[in-house]
Structures are given as structure tokens and as C-alpha cells.
């Protein structure tokens, strides 16, 4: 059990800045997920924590102890790579129990066997323990490598996309298993992923990394409901959030969002920024609905034509064209025909607004303080 803290972590490779001023704290026993696209610096961060890379600046602390200059072996972290390295001449069981033979972690043979079998059971590889790596599939080998990490006690588990080589169904199954594994629940875990669903499913908190910078850190609910910027908003959700470019204008009833082509106008609950500000309006496909006759009061309504209808399991994704804008709606209602006239609606409480220049979210609950002061 331990806390993990990264302070001003920076890593340069020649002219390339891979990590830029990374600050984050992982609590004791927490499951933390670092989420980002490939090339964002996730694996570099992990290697700095493990001691496999030396940061250019900043420090790594484990349980309050500065380990920046400590050898990997003495950091008491256990790391599972995306590219597992197993001993080819040892069975899966021998590979998994190997760390338990070392002086530091030595346990009785009986205890080692119990631990390996329990972890193997959870990972669904118990029946494969007597096989050699070459007799296993890629996904099975990956689970053996993960199991090898989980059997030995550590202050922190470092996990680099450990489910990436599994097929989609197994991934989903393993996700639920991993979270409920006793070892995982008691050990601080730092998990790297590019899959937003994995992050939401596993993470007590999630850090979103983009080009070496931490864009946002928070619980799943926080990053979902109050994304820091358009990058975070687009990272979570499938189909992706609808973003419509436009500007703020003053109307007779208050501040309006008007799309660039003038075809979409939405009355905002207040004036969050001065008129003329270039913004993007964000609304998630799940928060939109296709009208069937009457629409509920206090909703924003938009009229358009059906562009395309796609089935997602039982639900439909209806893409509606309004002027030049394509808006995706996920609905459980009956099918629509292409080019049919439809009204779509959403509750204004679901609306997100972003500053176009920086991509940063504008808080709609906060009035335009500057404008109030001016008035």
C-alpha cells in the first residue's frame, strides 16, 4: 500500500518534449487510469515511475519517498508491459511463480502455488498453467504476463494496456474480473489505456493525457459531465459528441448561440461570454431525441432532415442534417427514412459550450462577470 506522486515530471528526447510538467497524485489503494491516444506520453510516464527512464526534470515519489534516483529493483513496483516477455522454456505456472522464488518475495511452495492458482483462475488461464508460452495464443500469453505481475506483493502495480491483445469479448470479461481481483483492490494501481470505456470501467479517477500534458483529472462522472475541453469531450463517448461551430449573439430574449451557417440557434441560460465570442456548442448523441409529435416543455428544438439512419444493436443512430451541420442522435424510437423532415430536441441542461480558440469549456452556470462589472 502506498501513495504515488509525480511532481513537475518532464521528459525530453532530443528536441521532442514527451512529457511536459506532469503533476499528479495517486492515493493509497486507488486505481488510477492514464488515458490518451498513442504518442501522448503514457508509456513514458509509466517508465519514469518504474525507473526505466530517467526524467529530464521533476520527481517521482512513492509513499512520500523520493525514488527519482532509485534503481528500478528497489522501487517495489511491479510492471506489466503491453509486450510481455515470458521465459520460453518455462511453463505458464513457472513463469507466473518466478518472482516468488526471488530472495525478496520468497514464500513457501504451497503459498506460491495457491497464489498463482487464484490469480490464474481470475484471469481464466488456470487450465493452461502447464503449457509453454509457444503453446499459448497471444491473448493467453498476455494474461500470463499480467498474472506474473499480480502474484507478487508490490507498493504499486504499473499496467501498460494489459488487455490490448485480447479480443473484444474477452476484454470486456477481463475488465470486470480485474477490478474485482483482491490483489488489485488492495494495491495502488496505475493503469495506462487508450480505451475510454476501459478507463471508465476501471478507474477510481482518470487522467487524460494529450501531447505530454495532463488535460484533466477526475472521476469518470466528472470527465463525462464536465470535460475540460473539446479534446476530453471527444475522447469519451461513441458515437462522438456533436460539436457545432458558431458564435454568441445577443437576441431579444437573451444570449444566443448561432451556428456559423446561421441555421442553428439556441437560447442559452445566461450570457457566459461577450457577444461575438467564437464558440463550439457540444451535445452528446445520447442526450438528443427525435420528436414523435409533441415535444416536452423546456427543451431546445431543432428542425432538419434525416441524412442517414444506422442501427446500433437495438437502438438507432439517426444523423440529421440542419443546414451544413450533421447532428447524430441515438434513439430507441422507430426508424426514420432518409430525407424525412424531423424535429430533434434536448434539455438545455445537457448543453456544453467551448471556447473555439482554446477549446476550453465555458461554464454555463457562471455569468459573464466582465459584462456584469461593465454594466
Amino acid at each position: 500500500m502506498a501513495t504515488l506522486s509525480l511532481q513537475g515530471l518532464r521528459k525530453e528526447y532530443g528536441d521532442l518534449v514527451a512529457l511536459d510538467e506532469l503533476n499528479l497524485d495517486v492515493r493509497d489503494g486507488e486505481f488510477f487510469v492514464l488515458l490518451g491516444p498513442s504518442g501522448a506520453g503514457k508509456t513514458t510516464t509509466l517508465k519514469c515511475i518504474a525507473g526505466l527512464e530517467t526524467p529530464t526534470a521533476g520527481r517521482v515519489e512513492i509513499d512520500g519517498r523520493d525514488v527519482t534516483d532509485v534503481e528500478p529493483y528497489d522501487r517495489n513496483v511491479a510492471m506489466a508491459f503491453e509486450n510481455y516477455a515470458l521465459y520460453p522454456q518455462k511453463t505458464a505456472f513457472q513463469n507466473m511463480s518466478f518472482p516468488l522464488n526471488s530472495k525478496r518475495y520468497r514464500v513457501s511452495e504451497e503459498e506460491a502455488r495457491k497464489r498463482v492458482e487464484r490469480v490464474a483462475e481470475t484471469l481464466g488461464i488456470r487450465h493452461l498453467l502447464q503449457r509453454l508460452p509457444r503453446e499459448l495464443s497471444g491473448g493467453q500469453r498476455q494474461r500470463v504476463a499480467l498474472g506474473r505481475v499480480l502474484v507478487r506483493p508490490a507498493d504499486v502495480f504499473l499496467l501498460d494496456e494489459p488487455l490490448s491483445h485480447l479480443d473484444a469479448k474477452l476484454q470486456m470479461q477481463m475488465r470486470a474480473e480485474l477490478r474485482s481481483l483482491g490483489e488489485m483492490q488492495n494495491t495502488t494501481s496505475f493503469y495506462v489505456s487508450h480505451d475510454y470505456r476501459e478507463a471508465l470501467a476501471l478507474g477510481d479517477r482518470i487522467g487524460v493525457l494529450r501531447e505530454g500534458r495532463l488535460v484533466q483529472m477526475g472521476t469518470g462522472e466528472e470527465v463525462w459531465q464536465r470535460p475540460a475541453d473539446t479534446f476530453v469531450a471527444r475522447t469519451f463517448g461513441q458515437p462522438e459528441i456533436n460539436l457545432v461551430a458558431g458564435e454568441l449573439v445577443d437576441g431579444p430574449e437573451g444570449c444566443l448561440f448561432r451556428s456559423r451557417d446561421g441555421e442553428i440557434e439556441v437560447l442559452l441560460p445566461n450570457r457566459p461570454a461577450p457577444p461575438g465570442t467564437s464558440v463550439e456548442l457540444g451535445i452528446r448523441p445520447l442526450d438528443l431525441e427525435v420528436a414523435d409529435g409533441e415535444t416536452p416543455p423546456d427543451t431546445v428544438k431543432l428542425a432538419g432532415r434525416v441524412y442517414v439512419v444506422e442501427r446500433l444493436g437495438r437502438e438507432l443512430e439517426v444523423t440529421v442534417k440542419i443546414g451544413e451541420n450533421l447532428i447524430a442522435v441515438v434513439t430507441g424510437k422507430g426508424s426514420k427514412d432518409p430525407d424525412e423532415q424531423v424535429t430533434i430536441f434536448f434539455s438545455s441542461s445537457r448543453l456544453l459550450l467551448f471556447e473555439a480558440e482554446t477549446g476550453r469549456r465555458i461554464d454555463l452556470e457562471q455569468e459573464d462577470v466582465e459584462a456584469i462589472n461593465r454594466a
Partner: protein
Amino acid sequence: MPEDLALTELNKVYRRRGKPEVHAVRGIDLEVQQGELLALLGPSGCGKSSTLRMIAGLEEVTSGDILIGGSSVVDLPPHRRNIALAFENYALYPPLTIEENITFGLQARRARDPQKRAREIAERLGITDILGQKPGALSTGQKQRVSLARALVREPSVLLLDEPLSHLDLAQRDRTRREIKRLQEETGYTTVLVTHDQLEALSMADRIALMNEGELQQVGTPEEVYDDPANLFVAGFVGDPPMNLLHGRTRGTERGMNVSLSGETSLPVANSSVSPDQRVVVGVRPQDIHVVDSGGPDVVRATVFAFEPLQETGLLTTTLLGVETRIKTETAPRARFSREESVRLRLDPDRIRLFDAESGDRIR
């Protein structure tokens, strides 16, 4: 001019010296209507690509026939079949620009204003900015869209798309999928889409032909394949998260037929074609199981194993009393469950599907 396409008793056997014979495609009968988009769906090695390659004329037919607009094409070379093909592994001409690659050969066919059409399609696929470039500089995702654009500007009798979205990232995939579907609807091209991705097939196809081990498993609309699977293979392949499949045995009681899943858990079944003491598999989708407050005939007891707050939805994994297989339930996104908590689940009786455990066939 789009035409209809028919495959009759189509077989493909690969015979290589020193290797066992591979019967890759086994007696496929399939009709694709004029203007229809049919998805050939299946796992890798199921025979879908061999089927596509036979339609294109890139593979010889071992036996059976392929008819386009009612006439057999099996003896015609690829270029005389009036087919357009977008590959997973795009072959672009390196010395030509992207625009030239897209319009290549169109002048020869006296197509109407090919440049204009090429530009329109390029815009819709999001590749306008690279029209002047050479293929060498492109990413795989861009090459794939160029290959797609090249197939779409032709006016083929049959359009063949082989995993057209496989190299695109999630956002590009959404956009490209939407545009392919819209373009296909506008042009009315008869289209065969080969894919291993069930979501791609569900979202784009008018009908899906699901293949496994060289044989057709089911042909139907996305709705039919999703809600009315013909066998266990279809039930397990289509849907994300997949359908829950639970093994059990039927039992006659004074109140009707039950499926007993374990000593402690059983479900009533309203299916008159099962016989008592038959080994069956109960299939039910995660969105057709509901967490409820009180008991009832369709309600079973379960213990929470894990809960995943996916925000778009909640995904609850539980174990039914005495049942080894865990089941998944979709819940409201803001639900809260803790491990080992007891819950009651109602399995919607109208949505339960029964399969014979031996043959895997649906019991209707």
C-alpha cells in the same frame, strides 16, 4: 447501371500440393437485390473474403455460379464484370496524384464530369486537402479512403467493399461509415460489404449474411439477426456486449415448463416446442434484463460481481444462485451497486431466446 447479383451453390476448395484440402466456401446461395447493401459478416477465416474475391473474379470458382443482372460472369475476366472494388489493402498508382488515382480510367468510360464527381466524393470522405499529393506521403487511413473514393466514382453494376474502415480511427470511422451509407443510398449501387465487425454490419447493411466455417449461418435484416438469431453462433457473434448464454435443462412443472439453470435458479419458458428434460441454452441480451425491487415468476436472485459506470450506460456483472456463468445487465448510467450485494433481476420473457444445446439451433 446497378444490377442484381446472385450466387448459386457457390463452392471454393483450395488444393495445394502437400497440404490438406481447404473447403473455404461451402454451397453459398445468396441474392443481392438491385440497390441493396448486403454485408458479408463473419470472423476471420469464415470464407467471406474468398466469396468476395470470386465475385470480383480474382479467384476461380470451384463450382457453382455467379450471376450479375441475370448473366453468368464466372468465365469473364475481372475488368469485364463492371465491378468496382475497394480493398483493405489499397493499390494506388505511386506516380499519379490522389485526384488522378481517383479518376483514373474514367475518361475511357465516358463518365459524366469525373473531376467534379471525384471532388464531391473526396469532400464527403474528408480527403480534399490531399487531392494534389502523391500516395507515398499518405497515412494508411488516408490511402484507405482514397481507395474507397476511387471505387465510389465509378458507376459499377456491383460495388464491392472489403473491410473499408479497418484502418481508420474511431472518429474517422463514424464519419466514413455515415458517408458510405448515404452515398450508397443516393447512388443506388448494388453493394457487397465484407466485414468482421458486427457493429459495422448492423449499422450499414440492408441485410446481413453471417458466415462461419464456409457456410451461411443466417441471412436477414439487422433487426432479425440481432433480435431473432437462428443459432448459437449468430447469438454469440452479434451484439456488444454480447448476448448472455446460460446452459440449463427443461423441466415440466404443474405451472408449465421451466428451464432449470441450477438447483436454486429456474425460469419459466413460454415455448411449446421444447420437451421435458431437454438440454437447452437460454439467450438473453443485457438490455433485456432489469434490476427490480420485488420478486415474481420471471425474477431471479443474483449476487453482484462487478459494476462498471460507463456513463453512457451502466454495466452490471452478476452471478445467479448456483450458476457458474456470469451474466451482464445494462442499467441506468447513474446506478450504484456494491460487490456481493444481492439483487433481483427480471429477464424479459418476450426477449428470451432458447437454443438446443446439442445442435446450437434455435428452438422456436
